[in-house]
Structure formats: C-alpha cells, structure tokens
C-alpha cells in the first residue's frame, strides 16, 4: 500500500544548480552576525533563494509524488451514516478506517 518515492533525476539536477548558489550567497551575508542569528539567517537565505528561483519545483517536491500514499485516491466518505446508506443501497460491505486525527485523509 505504501510506496517508496522516485525522484526524476532531471528535477534534482535543476534544483542542484540553484541550491549551490543559494547556500553560497547566504554564507557571505551571515558572516558578521552573532551565531544564533547567523544560523537563522543562513536558513532563511538558502530557502528564500531556492523558492525565488525554483518555486514550482519545490512545491511539487513537497506535494504527493506519483504512486505515493495511494489510499488517498480512494473517494472516502467521512460520514459513517452516509457510508452506511451507500453500502445498503449498493449491497456492499464497508471498509472503515477511523482514527482520532482524521486518518487517512488528514494528519496521521
């Protein structure tokens, strides 16, 4: 049911070019800062630079990948009563996945 991700090598290479530049730029600007602020600044700068140049790719990388978490493609009903009505009308049993956090369609 759960599948391992596959990353297309082309996407990784495109990000790589920007990633190197972003971290390099951050280190120069942060050099004069106190240690904690320097680290935060470094973090902000690499991420900001990456998002400026490759927003679409990063958004796509974070979102579900093809073949990942395939159970989410199931047209789940979220009302047990509605599911009962459908099961009765269609002559089918129910597969119920219940959890306190809204699993499997929400934070697990």
């Amino acid at each position, binding site marked *: 049911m759960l599948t391992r991700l596959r990353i297309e090598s082309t996407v990784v290479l495109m990000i790589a070019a920007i990633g190197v530049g972003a971290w390099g730029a951050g280190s120069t600007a942060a050099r004069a800062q106190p240690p904690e602020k320097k680290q935060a600044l470094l973090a902000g700068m690499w991420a900001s630079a990456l998002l400026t140049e490759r927003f679409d790719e990063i958004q796509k990388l974070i979102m579900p990948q093809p073949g990942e*978490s395939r159970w989410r493609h199931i047209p789940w009903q979220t009302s047990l009563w509605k599911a009962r009505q459908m099961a009765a009308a269609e002559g089918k049993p129910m597969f119920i996945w219940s959890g306190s956090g809204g699993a499997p369609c929400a934070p697990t």
Partner: protein
Amino acid sequence: MLNVLEDEEGKFARASRIYLTGSSGGVTFLTASGKLLGKKFGHGTTGAGITEALKDWSKFPESERMPGAIQVGDRGPIDAKHATVQPPEGCLILKVFGRYLAPDSKNALRTTTLLKDFPGIVNPATRYPGQFEYNSEANPDFMWLTEAEWKSLVPASPRNGDKFPFPAAIFERMCRYHLLPNSMTGRTGDVWGVVGPNATHGVRAREAYLTVEKASATGIHLTLQGFVYLGNVHDADAAPPKSQKEVLSALGYEASLHGRLIYDSAQKVFTHFDMVALGDMYGEAGESTWFYRPGRNPVGFAFELSSGFAPADRLPPRGNMTQSDLDRYIGLPGSK
C-alpha cells in the same frame, strides 16, 4: 468524535464496535447493519485482511447483501457539540502538505526515506516493513479562511507595487496549526507547549507581506514573501538529546515563505493560492526519538486551493474539530 457522539451515528459506531482509538487509526470491516467482518486492525491492513473480510461477507444471506435489502434511514438530529464541523459558509479551503526533506549530494533537496534519513527508526522500520513509510511521505492537512479573512487579502484599490502586511489572524493560525514541523510523524495536537495552538510563545518571530505584482480590470496577481521562526532557538553546540524532554527542548522551525495568489475580479474568487514554507527544522517532538535527525534539516509545507467538493476535502483543519475547536481556531489569541 464517534466515541462521544450522542446521536444515531455515534450510537451505531459504538454498538458495532468499530475501531475507535489511536491517532493513526484502525481498520474495521462492517455490514451496513453493523455486523463485523473479518478482523479489526490497528493502523492499516493488508490484502489478506480484506480477503478475509470479503469471505465473511460472502457467507451472509442475500437478504443482507442485496442492494436495498437493508434500509438505513435519516441520521436524525446531529449532536452539534461533539460532531465534526463542516466548513463555514463562504470559507476558503487550502490543502496543505508537509514533508521532511533532505539535502542531496549536490546541495539540492530531495525527499527522504526512513532507512536513509532517520537513524532512530531504522530498527522498527526494518522489523515492520511498510508500517512507517508514510511518515516520510507528504502529510495532508487543511487550512480554513473565513469569508471575511480571504476577502481581507484583496486590496480595495490595487496598484502595481503596493505592499501590505499578511493579515495577522491568518498568519498566526498558519504558524500555530499548519507549520508544525512535527506533524509528519503523527503528533496532531499541541507539542507540549513548544509549537502548536497552545504554545503562546511558540512563534518567536513572523513577518510576511503581500505585494501587488499586477492589477488589471480582470484580476489581481499578488506575491507573498516572509519568514517564520517557531519553537526554540537552535543550539548547534548542544550534545545530541538523550531523552524526550531534551528532544522537545530542542524543537524549532525557521522557514521562508513564498506565495503566488491570483484573484479573479469578475468572479470575485481566488483562482490560485500557492504558498510554500521552506526552512530548517531541528529537534523532534514526540513520544520517542524515532524521528530525531541531528542538526538542522529541511522541512517544507505547500499550500494550494482546494475545491472542497469531495467529502475528504471538507475535513476540518488538523483532521478533526468540534465547533468549540473551530471557534478557538478562528479567534486564536495572538492573532491581532
């Protein structure tokens, strides 16, 4: 909420003994009349579990299995105090995905795998193949903006280059409910006051602005830029945490925010609401150190518009909320 729901749906759930506990839930097979099929499973199930339930189902008489053989009437009055809320009228729904990331060998970013990136979970992940992989996959959530809130994002007289603060109510909610760096590992509630809805000091700093990139008679293109510092300050020289308390005290997330929003002036709706938070997480909040990664590690959150048409797209923020939870979500202290 089924375990406390005082209406016909709650009574049916408890009487039929479906699996009701646990944040990641459990699986039950059931007939429409409430009879259990096969076995119940904590967490997910396998093909064998489904086959067994279907075998049980096939043994039922046709009077139970034929379409329309069982009649299920209306649910009746809903227990409004305990029921899961529906999106308020005019609400804008954003689909949110969070994901652990990692730098790759060329300083770019990649997705993670348990065995490669999380040393603390290698043993349980090896012992129980397939049980934990979803933690390194995209973790879904939903953010709700009331009609008044999303309309507040639309400038009345937009001119190219105009810049204005991202509204505090939306931003504070985003920080305390939807940018939780621990959410991928199943910690759905507060993280013991470090980050989350109850963490009044969990937002160390936040700043974001919307800029009008293009305003015309047909619409407004906005960009969002900003940052958030959540949780505790990172101490790069600290020794690796050895206990849950130490792991918690090390938790934090520092991220940049970028977004692109498009408002259709004719239809008076947002047609695009794409936002990404990307930055470093440190520490790991939870009952164990399974997902602890030494040092600072990239974590991202992506937001996009949801149609809200499918039932699963109308689940409340963090997956489960009553009306009182929603009232708190909308009127979160610190959002002014």
